[in-house]
């Protein structure tokens, strides 16, 4: 693992739940890792595979989508669709060597501020363990040169 | 007794009203003919004719026509099986001419098992014509002296005794007899059925056959298959499509001290029963990988000696 690796994580959050939960976490002054970039979405079901891939191409080490609890989607099935799409992206990332573990789907409600913080910590921990995305060479090369030196 | 259409011994015996017995030899997965000759020696006094399977279950084997040549050389009466899976209308007709020139007088027309069951599942199948159309073609060669395209055969037209198969255990059951009728209309002279285990269903099938008078137009040989073990019985029950093996048969095989002897016993009982069904003109014994047992079954069923 890279010592000073701070993962860059993009979280696509549904406006009706996760995004509000993030607000709540903030007002409760709950600590969560600062390396998470939140993107507000009208529904997790809006998530497009291309947008997730774009995030990785743009330098993200991990991505997650947070939608409402299953059965509670404001648009009925958006979060179920999102889960399936995440499954697809996982396979695709495995195929191209980036690793499907770098992307995840979470479900929570607007009232679950603490859970929001927990998810953020959980994902950060996971990506830290996985190390930088293979696309982020700057980090990747460091340990190699240090063993050589 | 009708005028013989061919030089087939099988036809002659059926016309004489004999209850005929046919057997089956699976050609080997190699290029040696000795095994076939050995089986012919073993069977030729106990069966009236023997089927040579055509790359059965889509596994590459010595060709049925070449196997038939070995049968003829050893003094047996061959029935070549011919599937429409691997040959188009050109190759089928060419092989019919060739087989006839070698002395083969009986052909059994069938669809053939799909190639996905065999040892070359990535093969491209042919299915240019279907089995009923093959029956029609063989009849056309014989009775109209014409190739399928309509062109005349100037001389030496092949005069086969034409067989087809029927499966009383396939679905839709109600249509099975009608399809048999189609085969008879197409020109089938004799029928060999799928192996019978469910006697009740076969009885029903034959009742429908008689209702439509088909038994008067075609000779029906009922298929039987001796079981070697309870495992074999279960396999037939579960994994072979178009087969029905009722539980009492499984139970009998399971309870038997000597499963092989029990298998023979069941088979003999079946043959005796089949002899009592109006419209059954003979039996076809399929002892897959167990050809040696056929003489025992024929003797026990009281069908030995065979007519000349």
């Amino acid at each position, binding site marked *: 693992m890279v010592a000073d690796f701070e993962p860059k994580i993009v979280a696509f959050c549904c406006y009706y739940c996760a995004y509000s939960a993030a607000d709540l976490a903030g007002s409760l002054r709950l600590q969560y890792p600062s390396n998470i970039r939140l993107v507000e979405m009208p529904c997790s079901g809006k998530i497009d595979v*291309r947008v997730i891939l774009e995030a990785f*191409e743009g330098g993200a080490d991990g991505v997650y989508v947070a939608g409402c609890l299953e059965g509670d989607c404001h648009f009925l099935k958006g979060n179920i669709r999102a889960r399936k799409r995440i499954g697809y992206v996982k396979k695709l990332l495995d195929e191209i060597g980036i690793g499907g573990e770098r992307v995840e789907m979470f479900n929570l409600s607007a009232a679950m501020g603490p859970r929001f913080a927990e998810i953020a910590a959980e994902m950060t921990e996971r990506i830290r363990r996985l190390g930088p995305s293979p696309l982020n060479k700057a980090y990747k090369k460091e340990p190699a040169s240090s063993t050589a030196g | 007794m009708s005028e013989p259409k061919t030089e087939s011994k099988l036809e002659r015996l059926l016309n004489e009203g004999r209850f005929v017995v046919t057997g089956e030899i699976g050609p080997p997965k190699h290029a040696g003919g000795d095994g076939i000759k050995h089986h012919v020696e073993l069977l030729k006094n106990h069966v009236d004719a023997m089927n040579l399977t055509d790359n059965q279950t889509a596994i590459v084997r010595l060709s049925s026509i070449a196997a038939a040549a070995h049968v003829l050389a050893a003094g047996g009466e061959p029935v070549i099986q011919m599937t429409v899976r691997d040959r188009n209308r050109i190759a089928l007709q060419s092989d019919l001419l060739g087989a006839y020139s070698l002395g083969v007088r009986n052909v059994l027309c069938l669809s053939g*098992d799909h190639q*996905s069951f065999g040892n070359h599942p990535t093969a491209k199948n042919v299915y240019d014509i279907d089995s009923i*159309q093959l029956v029609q073609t063989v009849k056309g060669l014989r009775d109209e002296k014409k190739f399928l395209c309509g062109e005349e055969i100037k001389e030496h037209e092949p005069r086969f005794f034409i067989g087809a198969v029927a499966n009383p255990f*396939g*679905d839709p059951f109600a249509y099975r007899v009608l*399809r048999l009728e189609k085969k008879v209309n197409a020109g089938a002279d004799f029928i060999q059925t799928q192996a019978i285990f469910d006697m009740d269903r076969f009885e029903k099938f034959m009742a429908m056959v008689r209702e439509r008078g088909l038994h008067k137009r075609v000779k029906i040989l009922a298929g039987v298959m001796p079981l070697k073990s309870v495992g074999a019985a279960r396999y037939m029950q579960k994994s072979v499509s178009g087969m029905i093996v009722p539980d009492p048969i499984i139970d009998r095989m399971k309870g038997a001290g000597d499963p092989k002897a029990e298998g023979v016993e069941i088979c003999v009982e079946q043959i005796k029963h089949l002899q009592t069904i109006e419209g059954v003109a003979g039996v076809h014994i399929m002892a897959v990988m167990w050809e040696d047992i056929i003489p025992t079954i024929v003797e026990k069923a009281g069908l030995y000696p065979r007519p000349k």
Partner: protein
Amino acid sequence: MIIAEGKPIAEVAELIKDAKKVLMVGCGGCVTVCLAGGEKETGILASALRMLRQQQDNPLETVEVTLTRQCDPEYVEMLDKYVTDDIDCIVSLACGVGVQFLAERYPKWVVPALNTKFAGGTVKHGQWEERCGLCGECILYRTGGICPIIRCSKSILNGPCGGSQNGKCEVSPETDCAWQLIYDRMQALGKLDMLLEIQPVKDWSKARDGGPRRVVREDVMIS
């Protein structure tokens, strides 16, 4: 419509391994509907290929264009301005027809990104099934609207074979026996007697045979 499916990404990557800049061409026709080669899939494949190559220290540049149809010259022409000298390879996400139309027009290395599967339709969202074997002489009127050529594993015209059991084909318990379907339908329509007629052998010269088949309509030709 024509149903196609993406080739594995690694396979496409191998096909273009020597290219630095590729033109990735989607198609707005059938393959958009069956979610194999529309604008979206083109974007996904392009992104995936770029990421794969970035990891190999051999960056790939992609240009993405989706045409209304790749099987019509009037739309293919619109690609002209993108087919510049620096394009090393064209990746087509159309069916095999589109790939060939691009290859006929441009003196470039053109590779397929899809496997073209069959002529079929959507049976439910996300599932497509074959319906027509493009035999050139439709006989659906004899079989109650169910195609025996492609839906029967043995293309039997006088079925069913002995392997049909409980409505399923001998080939797989997931496959309906086409002839059971035909029987049921003809029965429901009161036309079972039609099935008693022996269907004649098929004229396969009207199907795949003797080079590409052609359909000509003089009345609509412009010159």
